[in-house]
């Protein structure tokens, strides 16, 4: 489970995230949507412990990300939007390193299972620097799943993946949540969100503009598909934010 309570993050004078609260439950795929600069990545980085919130609290599997960071991160699997990996390790060496770091029992067998799942087994003994972007993205997925985390956070999952791998990843997210785990993903693809997310949160201008399953959002906005819902919610949020920032008459 992911619990985010009143999360705020300020960079100097810019408030990237303004009091965001939500919960992602076990067995659920939660989609975090928003236009560029909405605060999605900042929220994700605060949840994964890469940055410290200015205000608020985040917990993973019941552990506070700041105060009990090691315990919280034991249950975290993270796929960042840009798959920076150690270029001079082979795929297998990277997975062995991460299994040891996360103290995964039978890490080699699990790594092999996932390598075969993503059709990477033939390339696992080659240096990562020779991999294509898609192969690196797949390897990052394996790295995130190796220790069977209770919480899987995926930032832009489909970047660089071929159609076959994209389909695999969509199904993987659904199946992984069905096992009782929590999956949080951010994406710009409404199609992906509509296909895999049980619930979505639309973030705009650093705050939540709308939240719920597709049906609830349809009722809230009166729009048909997720793309139209997204446009409506983000427009409304922009207008609200603009009116908030207008100077009050004396």
């Amino acid at each position, binding site marked *: 489970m992911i619990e985010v309570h009143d999360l705020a993050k300020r960079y100097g004078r810019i408030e990237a995230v303004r009091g965001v609260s939500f919960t992602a439950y076990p067995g659920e795929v939660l989609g975090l949507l928003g236009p560029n600069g909405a605060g999605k990545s900042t929220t994700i980085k605060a949840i994964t412990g*890469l940055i410290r919130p200015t205000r608020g609290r985040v917990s993973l599997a019941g552990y506070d990300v700041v105060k009990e960071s090691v*315990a919280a991160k034991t249950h975290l699997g*993270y796929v960042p939007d840009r798959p920076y990996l150690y270029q001079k390790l082979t795929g297998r060496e990277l997975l062995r390193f991460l299994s040891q770091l996360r103290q995964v029992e039978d890490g080699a067998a699990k790594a092999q299972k996932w390598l075969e799942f993503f059709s990477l087994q033939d390339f696992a003994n080659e240096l990562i620097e*020779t991999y294509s972007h898609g*192969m690196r993205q797949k390897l990052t997925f394996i790295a995130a799943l190796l220790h069977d985390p209770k919480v899987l956070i995926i930032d832009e999952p489909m970047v660089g993946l071929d159609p076959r791998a994209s389909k695999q990843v969509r199904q993987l997210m659904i199946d992984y949540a069905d096992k009782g785990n929590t999956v949080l993903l951010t994406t710009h693809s409404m199609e992906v969100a509509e296909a895999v997310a049980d619930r979505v949160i639309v973030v705009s201008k650093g705050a939540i503009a709308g939240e719920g399953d597709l049906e609830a959002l349809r009722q809230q906005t009166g729009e048909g598909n997720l793309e139209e819902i997204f446009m409506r919610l983000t427009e409304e949020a922009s207008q609200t934010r603009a009116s908030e920032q207008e100077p009050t008459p004396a």
Partner: protein
Amino acid sequence: MMIFAMRLRGALNGVKTNPGRYVFVFGFLALVYWATFAMTRRAVRFLYSYEVVDTIDLASAIAQRSLEALFIILMLGVAFSVLTTAITTLYSSEDLPFLLSLPVPAVQVFYLKVTETYLNAALLPAIFTLPVLVGVGLELGAAPSYYVISLAAVLALYAIPVAIGGFLSLLLMRVAPAGRVKEASTALSVVLAAGLIFGLRALRPEQIADLSPEQFRIFLERYASFEVGWLPPSWASQAVWSAIGGDVSAGAYFLALLSLLLLWMMARFAAFAYREGWVRSLESGTPKLDPTVRPAAWWERLFRPLGRTGSIIVKDIRLLVRDPTQWSQLLVLVALAGVYLVSVGSVQVELQRFRDVLGTLNLMFLGFLLAGVGVRTAYPIVSLEGEGFWMLRTGPLSSTSIVMSKFWNALPVMAILGFGLGYTAARLIDVSPTLAFVSPIAGLSAAIVTTGLGIGLGAAFPRFDATNPSEIPLSPGGLLYMTLSLAYATLMTLVLAWPAWQTLRRPGEFYWSQPEGLVLLGLITLLTLLVTVLPLLLGSRRLAQYEPGS
């Protein structure tokens, strides 16, 4: 011009984004500039008033030869660094596809890239040469045109190795294995640079001190009449010297002509090579199909008992061995250690008490040496995680675990070096038993402290965006590390001056077997631990607060 203006705007935006770093770099350069300028003026003044050099012509010839020697050394420096720079800027820079997509001829893009290569490789040597030229000019009352001509001569001179290096880098790209050209060029550059350092030291300039006044005069006369031949460095020194009197020598014209011609050819050739697809070595190799499930190597299993720390050490060893930008730093370490041992071994002192004084002072030099090694080995280790740091950061380990695993990783090499050099130096100088006992201990202490300072401050001021390990210490953290390491070496020498003094007073006694000696050893141990642990704690705390992009 438009492309140049665009790049200049980008550079100015960079200054606005991170003014602190630029203030630091410019402040540091200003300090170096001032020191070089002051030393040059003193050297010229001394040379022209030195009684052994009894004619102005001789002094002038010596100064000119010294300038040539400086030009040759800096030209070699440019030549060694330009290989990697040329490959990075000319062929693999990220903006190249964008620039080539603009509606301008490709050769114009490569003019820009050649200029970039030139600035990256030659700007720093030129900046270091400038205070020397200004110092010489002011001291000898040069004509106003001197400053323009001499600067132009130096800029033209450094263009020659840049162009030659550019051609060589192209050759390397033709012959290096696919995807390995950067590694090959880095390795080659560092091997040559380490060779240069060692070669310069092997000349053993201290031999001059053994010459009689007459022999020294003959040496100076020979030195003054030594010609390197009619080559670019002598053209440059002729240009500079003629410009003092306000004249423009033939060498100046040759130099300008040759450098412009070479840079022009380099740009045309680079554009041709890129267009014709000669740059195949930049392409990554195709991964081979090999489904074998390879187990951990035997040596890897040796680190298993260390748990997570062991796995980080194994990973770091692999990255070190496979990345030439990392292992090449070790060559510099070997060159430095070699220079140190050659220097210590060349010292011949008759009296035991003088040898002991020298042995005590040597402990400070050893500390300085280890500080220099640490800045290339320990300090960059945390930053070398690079963009992959997120894997450790989102993993189930604290910042303290990360910092300590890096400390244990760097310590063995540093400890062996510190202890080994301390022991060897004491034997080479042949100090008395009291100092022979403490010399390796002091070396070990300096190694532990410089490792702690390096890892701690490297973690406190990380630079995960650095593209080369040698860039990492160029920061306020690196400067703080050097200052504190040198301060510790001085402090330790002052502490050990007391037992050295006791040895001079009572040569037969072994100080460390006395209660006072044992107390002092305990204090040294405490001091070592304190100065090691405090920066590690600071580094751990600051790393925990680190945020990407901050």
